[in-house]
């Protein structure tokens, strides 16, 4: 019973929820990218590789120029570049989007290690100085609110940015003409095309945006949460983001809730010495939960109708 009491106590500490939100944001950014891409009809399982590429180039740029903002920009662009490759291959060349996604992930894993070796030789990548990391910012006044001040207003700058992007994605997707068009392209591209919507351009935009968002997540991981690049450091987060996207039924806020659940698990593990469960078994949970969701035990999760289908103008 004491263990249970300790866990309950843990659940009422601000530290835990502060860590939960940060961990969730790391998943939220690529998940939002996934939502945008798949809403436009392009399956995206490449967030892992896009994020890894962002993490790597963020660290390289930060070490070279000692400017975290410039480095973050580079990371975002690097993710966007991977998104562009996925877009060109799967939209322009109508390649199988899953194969393209797998290829992006393999490409990112191989290229980053290859480049570490080319740039830094056999040495470590090196560490980014404390002053050159993405800063934690306390929002004046609000950060003094008991409990919630610490959870919501004493966070990394990327966390604030991600929450803004979350709302923005929701508003754009469901409250604007652009969002309606993106969704139309993902549900019925032929009809959208007939209505004068540029299917290719919207899909390009959506897939590249997913890369930009994943690149930002990579920057947060490598030069925010951590201070160096380690091969494979994304450690499946791009895939957990994919799971969150499905869990959240392809909606931004649904995905956010899933990210919070997965983030809470990560935070409980990082913040406690009470529960004596193998961390490896705990790490399995997001994937098992997603399988259960997919099994329909928590309601159906249905992708956009044209998700995964290359658009061929003039086809039925």
């Amino acid at each position, binding site marked *: 019973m004491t263990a249970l009491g300790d866990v309950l106590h843990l659940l009422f500490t601000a530290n835990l929820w502060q860590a939960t939100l940060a961990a969730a944001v790391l998943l939220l950014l690529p998940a939002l990218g996934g939502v945008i891409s798949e809403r436009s009809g392009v399956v995206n399982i490449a967030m892992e590789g896009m994020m890894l590429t962002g993490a790597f180039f963020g660290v390289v740029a930060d070490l070279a120029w000692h400017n975290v903002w410039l480095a973050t920009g580079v990371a975002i662009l690097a993710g966007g570049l991977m998104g562009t490759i996925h877009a060109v291959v799967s939209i322009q060349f109508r*390649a199988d989007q899953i194969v393209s996604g797998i290829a992006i992930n393999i490409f990112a894993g191989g*290229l980053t290690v290859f480049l570490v070796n080319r740039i830094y030789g056999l040495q470590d990548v090196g560490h980014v100085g404390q002053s050159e990391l993405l800063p934690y910012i306390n929002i004046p006044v609000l950060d003094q609110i008991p409990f919630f001040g610490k959870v919501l207003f004493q966070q990394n700058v990327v966390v604030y940015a991600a929450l803004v992007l979350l709302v923005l994605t929701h508003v754009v997707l469901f409250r604007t003409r652009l969002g309606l068009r993106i969704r139309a392209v993902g549900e019925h591209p032929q009809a959208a095309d007939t209505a004068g919507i540029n299917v290719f351009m919207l899909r390009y935009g959506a897939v590249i945006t997913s890369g930009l968002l994943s690149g930002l997540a990579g920057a947060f991981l490598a030069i925010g949460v951590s201070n160096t690049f380690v091969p494979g450091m994304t450690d499946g987060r791009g895939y957990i983001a994919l799971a969150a996207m499905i869990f959240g039924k392809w909606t931004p806020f649904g995905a956010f809730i899933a990210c919070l659940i997965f983030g809470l698990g990560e935070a409980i593990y990082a913040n406690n010495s009470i529960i004596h469960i193998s961390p490896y078994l705990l790490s399995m949970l997001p994937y098992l939960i997603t399988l259960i969701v997919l099994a329909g035990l928590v309601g159906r999760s249905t992708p956009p109708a044209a998700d995964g*289908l290359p658009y061929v103008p003039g086809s039925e």
Partner: protein
Amino acid sequence: MPVGSVILAFVLGAVIVAVTGGNPFAAYSGLLCGGTGLGCQGGENPALQISTTIVYVIPLITTGVAVALPFRAGLFNIGAEGQMIAGMMACTAIGVRFSSLPAPVLLPMVLVGGMAAGALWAGVAGVLKATVGAHEVVTTIMLNYVAQWLLRYLIIGGPLQVAPGTSKSLPIGAGARLATILPADNSLIIFGLPASVYRVHTGLLLALAAAALFAFLLWRTSLGYEIRAVGQSQRAARYAGVSVARTIIVTMLIAGAFSGFAGAIQIAGVDHNLSDVYFTDTTGFDAIAVALLGLGSAVGIVLAAILFGALHAGGAVMQADAGISGSLVFVLQALILFSIAANFVGQIRRLIPGLGRPAALPPELPPAAPLMTEAADPPPEPA
């Protein structure tokens, strides 16, 4: 077309090496030496290199089959990795638990146990696909990670850990091991080295048998007909009286058994225990490239497995001799995948007039796209 894709990938790879200040010729000569034993300049033993390549090829054939079979049914199994690890875990658990049993009993036990575990792993995805329409790509990704974390748990702090502080299991019993092809004899010298250093093992024969079984199953049995019918059109297959749901589940079970077999063979033939080597293993993902490049035929899969096996074996030599990171191999693999999937070669041919006939349609693989249309709604069964 596949050959063109590979050549294009190598050209792009050479550009990447050259742009980053490396010597592509040195890199590729290292790959060639490590993969085939040809043109070695660092004193490598060609026979040993070939043996190493074959050791890589063995699981690639079997997992390649595990990806290619569901492909024919319009299913994209990207869970060969998880299924293979499931097979490894089962093989090790049985081989350690019953280590005193004699080979005629124990060897079949570990191999069948591995197949069963792989089939179970893939079966989850098959059942979810057939009953609630959950997309197999997503479920197999999740199952890959479940297998990876379970492996870590088992050998770090879990029941198979050999001792605290280690990340490996006890070795499986002698009766659970596959023999090497050459006798494990230090006094016998073959190609200038003791016979015991050549790790090439009898799993090679099992892998080739798996490829042959795949071809037989697909083209000579009614199940194979049903698999192909479902892959062509679920609706048409249903009208022809094929139970789509049953075919999906059976296909995934068989595919998982192939992957699990690959894992069991790997433990029984090479490692003899679980270790952290497999935390970063990519065999099951390489298998996707093997299946795509091999155009889904048994012979093609074996040839593609030889290519990727040679690349992986060559990576180490390239790194040692040419100072180019072995991860270039993954870059090449990704480029090959892009090239096949996007049919770059066909597009290039189309752009250049007078270069013979226009490129044919993409390879005869069932395109994965149509299967996604029917992914949303689960196949209803006629009452």
